[in-house]
């Protein structure tokens, strides 16, 4: 691929003018005449039977139009999708409101109050009287596996949703023959995705068409699903993802409220609006992570890894959402990291608990995989008294080994892990840092240097439960005046593909970026697509745009050749003009070719009119970005506070289409990963009440709490798509968590602290040191 002036350039975002002037329209900005508002009554119990629901008082309250319970839903709604289908998976059906009389987590929706104003709906929701009989609940996924644990779904007869194993080689033999074995138990705490815009849905049924505006990453999947859920033919459903204020996986689902609001709009014949409160967002939108990992790594004295054994217990929460089982299974697939580990075995168990369901959150299973192997490598280095860098070097998959198949079944496309590591070390001046660390320790100051080398997997989407495989659609339509409209099946919500996709088209066709508009998120405007998640938008969706643009160009060249009475092979173009090689006077402008494509009286024989191509791109394989993150912290052993000194990230996402946007993705990704390391973590009490239920208690970092980052790249193009791009939306998050944790534990090594549970808050540092007070 040739990186032209457009592709690879730091181009400002086309999205921004509407966003910085307050003109962008998010779901909550929609208001229609006659619109009614929904407030949802949610379970205050983690597990309970509903004895009765009395809606009499709520129905009589001022402004109330309707009050629905599970009975109404049962009569009007089909189930919501539960997927992806994993072999022998057991998952319950789910509905917009609880229909079987049992609530299974705090926040489970029980009733919906509809009123003419949001204030009236809110007021009346207090008047719905629900009589609960509390049941014993189970919070801990390991406890949920025990015999006699409360069972969430009686009809399944078990809390185990699925068990999967990954691996190859001979693990038993590898461990038996190893010189050292290091072990750890990792708690991947639950995280709250906390997109700044909560979810929201507006629905209107008018003129035989149901229009649903929803804050989603997958409008097309919502459309297909709603056809079943509200029992309407799919072609009568129009779904729009307007401006979407962040997702991070939390809007990669078809939620009950989407079905509920649509069903209410159909039943009431009025526009209906539901906007999630932040409190609801914390209990009713999916959580991320939630995994307990038992890790054992076997190695020889020289640091060569012989085998890896992982047992991952995934806390699925109360239900399987759209992709829930697909998250921890990624951990099984990716647990060997960047290393040539000949013998590996991973067992992944998905378990129901009385908590908010978990699902994909930025990284979705890969952060867990990277964390466990990167922690294990540091433990091994400590055990062997080797530098963590050297242990990694020793075990890297060498560049010549690609494509490389891991024993767990992933086929890595391309990589040069050592090059990224070297670049990070050089930039950090690693030796000097180690010297400074030694000097400061003598002064009673504790510097820590943490390294994480990661490889991850992007271009996901080949899962049942979604509307299709790992493909994406794009239309490139040259209008008769030569301007270009691009339609993409992806649904960006901050990633900036209105800009990068315009760059791709500009690169292919030679038209200025300003002459290209990119539309997305409207199922009536764009062909059926999959959506934006799993860092797939550019490698998969962008490749669809690329191929469609190539096809447009081929056709344009044929038309130009015909107009110029030359052979297509003799036509050259700079984008603005097609010229016969060697005869500069014989030329035709791009916009005239476009016009002639539609005038259609002078086309090559048999050619269809128009200059408009739709392409469904199917990548050959998935792609594997990688890199090295290096973090330097200082720990105050007296207060337990951690201060960031430096943060260096060298990421390889293949070819870079827009460095400005790639940097933005990495910055944001790092902060979310760093936040898992030291700030964020969901806490429930023993009764299943969420203690971190607001931004006051759930610690999302502010500008003052994070450092600036030093970014660099290596470029190893992927062979699997024409852009050579690998996707970069999650890389920062995946690299950051282990880099920060390794840094803190490196700082605390003189105290003999080997492991700490995330988030490593000041109290946890203090507690660890208190436990080692003899050494102080």
């Amino acid at each position, binding site marked *: 691929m040739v990186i032209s002036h457009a592709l690879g350039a730091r181009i400002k975002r086309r999205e921004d003018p509407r966003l910085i002037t307050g003109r962008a329209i998010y779901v909550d900005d929609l208001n229609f005449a006659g619109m009614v508002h929904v407030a949802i009554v949610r379970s205050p119990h983690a597990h309970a039977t509903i004895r009765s629901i009395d809606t009499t008082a709520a129905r009589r309250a001022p402004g109330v139009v309707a009050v629905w319970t599970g009975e109404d839903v049962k009569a009007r709604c089909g189930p919501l999708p539960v997927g992806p289908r994993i072999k022998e998976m057991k998952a319950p059906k789910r509905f917009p409101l609880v229909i079987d009389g049992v609530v299974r987590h705090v926040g489970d929706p029980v009733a919906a109050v509809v009123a003419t104003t949001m204030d009236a709906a809110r007021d009346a929701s207090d008047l719905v009287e629900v009589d609960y009989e509390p049941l014993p609940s189970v919070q801990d996924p390991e406890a949920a596996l025990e015999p006699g644990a409360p069972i969430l779904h009686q009809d399944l007869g078990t809390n185990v949703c699925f068990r999967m194993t990954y691996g190859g080689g001979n693990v038993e033999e590898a461990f038996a023959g190893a010189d050292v074995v290091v072990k750890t138990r990792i708690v991947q705490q639950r995280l709250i995705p906390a997109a700044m815009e909560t979810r929201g849905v507006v629905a209107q049924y008018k003129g035989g068409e149901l229009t649903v505006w929803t804050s989603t990453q997958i409008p097309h999947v919502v459309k297909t699903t709603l056809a079943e859920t509200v029992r309407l033919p799919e072609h009568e459903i129009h779904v729009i993802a307007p401006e979407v204020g962040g997702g991070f996986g939390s809007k990669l689902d078809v939620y009950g409220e989407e079905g509920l609001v649509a069903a209410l709009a159909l039943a009431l014949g009025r526009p209906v609006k539901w906007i999630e409160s932040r409190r609801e967002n914390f209990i009713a939108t999916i959580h991320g992570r939630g995994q307990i990992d038992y890790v054992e790594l076997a190695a020889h004295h020289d640091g060569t890894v012989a085998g890896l054994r992982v047992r991952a217990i995934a806390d699925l929460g109360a239900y399987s959402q759209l992709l829930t089982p697909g998250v921890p299974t990624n951990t099984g697939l990716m647990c060997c990291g960047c290393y040539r580990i000949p013998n590996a075995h991973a067992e992944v168990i998905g378990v129901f608990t009385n908590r908010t369901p978990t699902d994909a959150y930025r990284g979705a299973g890969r952060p867990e995989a990277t964390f466990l192997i990167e922690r294990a490598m540091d433990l091994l280095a400590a055990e062997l008294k080797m530098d963590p860098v050297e242990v990694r070097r020793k075990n890297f998959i060498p560049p010549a080994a690609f494509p490389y198949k891991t024993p767990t079944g992933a086929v890595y496309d391309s990589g040069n892990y050592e090059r990224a590591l070297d670049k990070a070390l050089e930039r950090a001046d690693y030796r000097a840092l180690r010297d400074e660390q030694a000097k400061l320790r003598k002064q009673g100051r504790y510097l820590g240097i943490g390294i994480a080398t990661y490889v991850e997997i992007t271009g996901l989407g080949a899962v049942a439960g979604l509307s299709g495989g790992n493909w994406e659609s794009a239309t490139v339509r040259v209008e008769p005046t030569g301007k270009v409209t691009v339609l993409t099946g992806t649904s960006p919500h901050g990633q900036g593909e209105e800009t990068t996709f315009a760059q791709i088209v500009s690169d292919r066709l030679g038209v200025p970026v300003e002459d290209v508009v990119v539309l997305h998120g409207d199922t009536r405007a764009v062909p059926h697509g999959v959506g934006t998640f799993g860092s797939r938008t550019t490698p998969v969706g962008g490749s669809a745009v690329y191929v469609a643009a190539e096809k447009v160009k081929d056709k344009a060249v044929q038309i130009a050749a015909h107009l110029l009475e030359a052979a297509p092979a003799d036509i050259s173009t700079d984008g603005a003009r097609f010229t016969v090689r060697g005869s500069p006077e014989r030329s035709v402008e791009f916009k005239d070719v476009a016009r002639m494509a539609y005038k259609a009286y002078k086309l090559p024989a048999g050619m269809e009119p128009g200059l408009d191509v739709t392409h469904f791109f199917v990548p050959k394989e998935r792609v594997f970005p990688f890199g090295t993150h290096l973090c330097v912290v200082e720990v105050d052993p007296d207060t337990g506070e951690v201060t960031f000194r430096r943060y260096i990230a060298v990421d390889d996402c293949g070819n870079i289409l827009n460095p400005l946007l790639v940097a933005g993705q990495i910055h944001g990704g790092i902060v979310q990963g760093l936040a898992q390391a030291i*700030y964020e973590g969901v806490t429930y009490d023993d009764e299943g009440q969420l203690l971190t239920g607001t931004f006051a208690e759930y610690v999302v970092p502010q500008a003052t709490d994070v450092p600036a980052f030093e970014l660099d790249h290596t470029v190893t193009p992927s062979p699997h798509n024409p852009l050579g791009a690998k996707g970069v939306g999650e890389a920062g998050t995946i690299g950051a968590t282990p880099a920060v944790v390794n840094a803190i534990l490196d700082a605390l090594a003189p105290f003999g602290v080997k492991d700490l549970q995330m988030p490593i808050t000041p109290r946890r540092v203090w507690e660890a040191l208190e436990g080692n007070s003899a050494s102080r």
Partner: protein
Amino acid sequence: MIPDRFEYVAPSSVAEAVGLLQRYGAEAKVLAGGHSLIPLMKLRLASPRYLVDINRIRGLAQLQEDDGTLGVGALTRHADLETSELIRSRYPLLADAARVIADPLVRNMGTLAGSLAHADPAGDWGAAMLAVRAQVVATGPRRDRTIPIDEFFVDTFTTTLGPDEIVSEIRVPKPSPRSGGAYLKVERKVGDFAIAAVGTYVVLDEKGACRQVGIGLCNVGATSLRAKRAEETLRGRVPDEKAIADAARAASEECDPASDLRGPAEYKRDLVRVLIGRALRRAVQRAKGGA
């Protein structure tokens, strides 16, 4: 999130406001900065029937020295203290405290007086005011009453303020020569309520011994606390490392923290010890003319 219904009244004088409080009694709440009250109302954890907005009363936003004290008006915002040159140059403890309260947006609305009246033990001003021996001026139906800060806090969210009284001013003694103060806080992230925080104020005599000591503790008890024994430990002594360590230990013993999401009680006690040590060192340094 929408508050329950209530009636809003905006008096134009303190006397009028007091009259409204007399009439509505416990059903009324005073709205100053509102940044503790309105969030509680939105969550419907507070549902007063009447809201008496004092923001339209003139002359309550002063921040000036006279008669040996600094007067801080009922409507003087945290940000006013944070950005005041007077505070920065002469009241380092207050300057330290002002900039660690919540975030800049909250500091633009929230008030020192309101924060004290709310009596949240996690409020930073309580500890700071205890350290500097402030006085709370309460205006009620009869004449104004001056309440020493030591007699102000009764329990969590409870003060000795009458239901028909308004905190109209806070009075802070002017700094003596050879005095210094500091406020230090450990928090989970900037602007969070403290895991623990401490305010220290010292006045040195000619020989460098502590003539006066004030130590206030934040979020390690049911109310903002004064570390009385720690103060006694230090009073009359030259604040060398030994004396400071003794005071720090005393404070960590006399505080009464509860275990919660921010950490176990033992951790908070130890933090008090560490922070008192650091804050005293800084206060002494400042008393000796350092920054």
